[in-house]
């Protein structure tokens, strides 16, 4: 049975070109994306604004037609997956009518899915029961995001696509949201989310796909992507006496990079952080040592710059 499973999502050479061919105004928003996502994965689509994330997700959802390549969701076209209630999304832009009430919005979309029986459950899950009678326009950004989340949960989809899902949520709400998503993924729901918060990809995605200029520039388990950057960042305070000599020594040691001094604190990057920590503490009299794994931010900057 397991061998016959179609991947949750399969993109092959996916492209989207805006503007007429041969015209000077042609924009290749998405430029040949290949991607296979298996059931139960949480994948971050990470990239700066304008990288083509939303355009790619629109095609994945069948909201716009690719100008090249193919999209399969659970082995079907996106529109059949949507029609079968197996593919749903939290969309980024707008998406809600301000003069509709929260409860009405959920009931209306539930009616379009023919799942009005699930309204209560979904309202509770998205923590909307208390504001059911409030009009959408009076809800905060985070509350509106929760409404959209509720709408996406209505069909109980196998594949859930989230475009900047936690925009406007406070830290607590964001954490609760992702805890819920993790539980769903463990039960087999596939979650693909676009974000430009590196932190969010780091904390919540088991796999990160880095997108820049409409292309995939990196695709790896998030941990590995971070590790492959090489090393960790160390920072510590150095005693004033001998600080200059110490800086010189650090700068000359191989395996240490990006040494910088800010006041009495030195920051550097090292491949073998244990060895460098020993050096700093034992030989150079360092105090208040901090060691941090390289952030995706660095990977991001390295990989998305031209």
């Amino acid at each position, binding site marked *: *049975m*397991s061998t*016959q*499973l*179609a991947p*949750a999502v399969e993109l092959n050479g996916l492209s989207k070109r805006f503007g007429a061919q041969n015209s000077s105004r042609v924009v290749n928003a998405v430029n040949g994306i290949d991607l296979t996502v*298996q*059931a*139960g*994965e949480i994948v971050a689509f990470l990239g700066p604004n304008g990288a083509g994330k939303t355009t790619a997700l629109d095609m994945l*959802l069948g*909201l*716009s037609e690719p100008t090249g390549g193919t999209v399969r969701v*659970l*082995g*079907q*076209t996106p529109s*059949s*997956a*949507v*029609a*079968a*209630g*197996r*593919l*749903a*999304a939290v*969309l980024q*832009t*707008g*998406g*809600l*009518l301000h*003069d*509709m009430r929260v409860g*009405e919005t959920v*009931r*209306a*979309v*539930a*009616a*379009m*899915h*023919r799942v*009005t029986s699930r309204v209560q459950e979904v309202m509770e899950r998205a923590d909307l029961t208390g504001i059911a009678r409030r009009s959408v326009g009076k809800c905060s950004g985070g509350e509106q995001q929760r409404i*959209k989340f509720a*709408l996406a949960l209505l*069909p109980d989809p*196998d594949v859930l696509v989230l475009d900047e899902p936690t925009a406007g949520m406070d830290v607590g709400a964001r954490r609760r949201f992702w805890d819920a998503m993790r539980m769903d993924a*463990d*039960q*087999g*729901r*596939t979650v693909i989310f676009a974000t430009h918060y590196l932190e969010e990809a780091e904390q919540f995605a088991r796999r990160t796909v880095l997108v820049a200029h409409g292309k995939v520039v990196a695709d790896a388990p998030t941990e590995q992507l971070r590790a492959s950057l090489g090393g960790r960042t160390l920072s510590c305070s150095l005693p004033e006496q001998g600080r200059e000599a110490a800086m010189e020594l650090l700068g000359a040691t191989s395996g240490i990079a990006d040494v910088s001094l800010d006041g009495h604190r030195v920051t550097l990057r090292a491949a073998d952080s244990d060895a460098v920590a020993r050096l700093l503490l034992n030989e150079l009299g360092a105090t208040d040592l901090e060691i941090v794994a390289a952030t995706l931010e660095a990977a991001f900057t390295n990989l998305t710059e031209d």
Partner: protein
Amino acid sequence: MSTHTNAAAAAAPGQPTPAQPTPGQRGLGFSATFFWIEAARMARNGYTLAFTIVMPVVMYVIFGATPEYGSMDAGNGNVSFSVMVSMAAYGVATSMTSLTSLAATEAQQGWGRQLALTPAGLRGYAAVKVAVALFYSAISVVAVFLTGALTGAAMDTAGGWLATAGIILGIGLIYGLFGLGVGLIFPSDAASGLASMTLTLFAFFGNVFMPLSGVMLDIAHYTPLYGYVALARWPLSEGYLSDGSQDPLWALILNVVAWTAVFVGLVFLGLRRSRARH
């Protein structure tokens, strides 16, 4: 990693699954729940009620019920009835136009994307919105006709009342196309206001609000509301105008058919524009 396959199999039994036809996938995807939610939302929006119900009723009272000429004979009824028909038709044209242009605008915003991700899709939304527009149109006709019946509008036969209401609602549907076209071409909240204002202008120059004569009347024959309202008055006046001349039935039908074609053209233009934006 090995847990994925098991979990997925549990969540999606019988993989690979062909597209399962769901109830919403076939037919119009009309939803009664959504219809009532939309109807309530429009009722909360004072603009809708003011333009589709209050305004036609008030205009009828001012121009049709109170003046002394109201009780004068006009064909198979009286002048009050004639004014009542004009105002009801204007009310229907306005509600069809403003509600469908609003729907087109909403469908092109994020809400439309949200609904496109449901099995019923935008088709289901369109079905609901047209039904809501018709619902308000019917309320508008009932409100104006009821006011008319209570204030002296007279028609020789009960069948005449029914036939007139039927013509008003039936032909009024084409203003759904007009509103849709305008909403697709100008996807902003202003579109609905623009469409309604255009309609009021058409009403002035289309022999709807007051009887025109001379050159104004000659021009009026070619404006969109003229054919519609003249046909709605047909059971009453059979094409006779206040100056004694008579419009042939075919000319009125031609007016409606020609303007329907124009509105269909607007819709296609709007669809093309809207697709180009995506």
